[in-house]
């Protein structure tokens, strides 16, 4: 089978090329992400109107919703990398599994904790065993499982293979988290954002949320490049291209 983007994928999946690309893109993505996040935050915390029911507590949304979205998105990226690593044994895909897992766990943790802090004034409790919350917690443990399995096995390639299987199987949790508020009667409110034509919240609240989305996603990309760069360096430390970088720089 021939895909039009295959030559491009082949080119960037070469470790030295990817490493150099990562070095170039980390500061660009990091700074742009930071600027978007600052604008989104000032807008969301300082200028968006308070909610008619939740008052100012709704403003936790600007970190909670992007974190929760990333917790699912990063898992999906990790599972797709796992399929590629498992089927084609592409080294970069193995690196991507282990580069994504900690940052996915980070955003899942943030989604859970900020949600919990939001829950206290709105629901009267920090935690309930509600489907949405429970499966998000399971997702956090799945990230831990992938990291633990990979680090427990000395041979990185064998470890990546084991972690890939766990990551692939665990993808079932992603749609369960996403649809949990639809399938079950949940304490958790429904989605604030479905389509651009029909948002569930006012535009004055939605625009800063979208800006935070862009910012946090760029930030995520920067961190993925940071982590995959480290992993590549360790895995390939005995190759000629790493030698060249050690001697002459990038």
């Amino acid at each position, binding site marked *: 089978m021939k895909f039009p983007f295959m030559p491009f994928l082949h080119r960037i999946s070469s470790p030295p090329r990817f490493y150099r690309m990562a070095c170039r893109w980390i500061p660009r993505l990091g700074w742009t992400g930071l600027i978007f996040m600052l604008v989104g935050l000032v807008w969301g915390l300082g200028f968006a109107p308070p909610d008619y029911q939740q008052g*100012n*507590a709704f*403003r*936790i949304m600007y970190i909670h919703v992007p974190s929760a979205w990333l917790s699912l998105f990063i898992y999906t990226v990790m599972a797709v990398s796992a399929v590629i690593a498992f089927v084609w044994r592409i080294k970069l895909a193995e690196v991507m599994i282990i580069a994504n897992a900690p940052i996915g766990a*980070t955003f899942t943790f943030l989604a859970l*904790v900020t949600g919990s*802090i939001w829950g*206290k004034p709105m629901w009267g409790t920090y935690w309930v065993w509600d489907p949405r919350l429970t499966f998000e917690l399971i997702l956090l443990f799945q990230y831990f499982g992938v990291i633990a399995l990979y680090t427990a096995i000395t041979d990185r390639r064998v470890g990546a293979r084991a972690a890939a299987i766990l990551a692939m199987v665990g993808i079932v949790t992603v749609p369960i988290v996403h649809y949990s508020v639809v399938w079950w009667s949940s304490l958790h409110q429904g989605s604030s954002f479905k389509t651009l034509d029909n948002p569930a919240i006012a535009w004055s609240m939605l625009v800063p949320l979208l800006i935070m989305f862009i910012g946090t996603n760029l930030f995520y990309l920067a961190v993925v490049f940071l982590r995959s760069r480290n992993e590549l360096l360790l895995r390939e430390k005995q190759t000629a291209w790493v*030698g060249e970088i050690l001697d002459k720089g990038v």
Partner: protein
Amino acid sequence: MFNDFNMGKYAVYVWSSYGLALIVLVASYVIPLLQHKKQLRILKRQRRAGRLEQ
């Protein structure tokens, strides 16, 4: 309309969420960045000592 970042009775919830997020996000960027510097230093030393030859 600017609200002076005044969160009223929800201040403690809003600011603790963002304070935590700030710490966690800064750490998740800075830790791998410092690891990279450290790795480069260690690998350069190993290379000079000839311990990275195949």
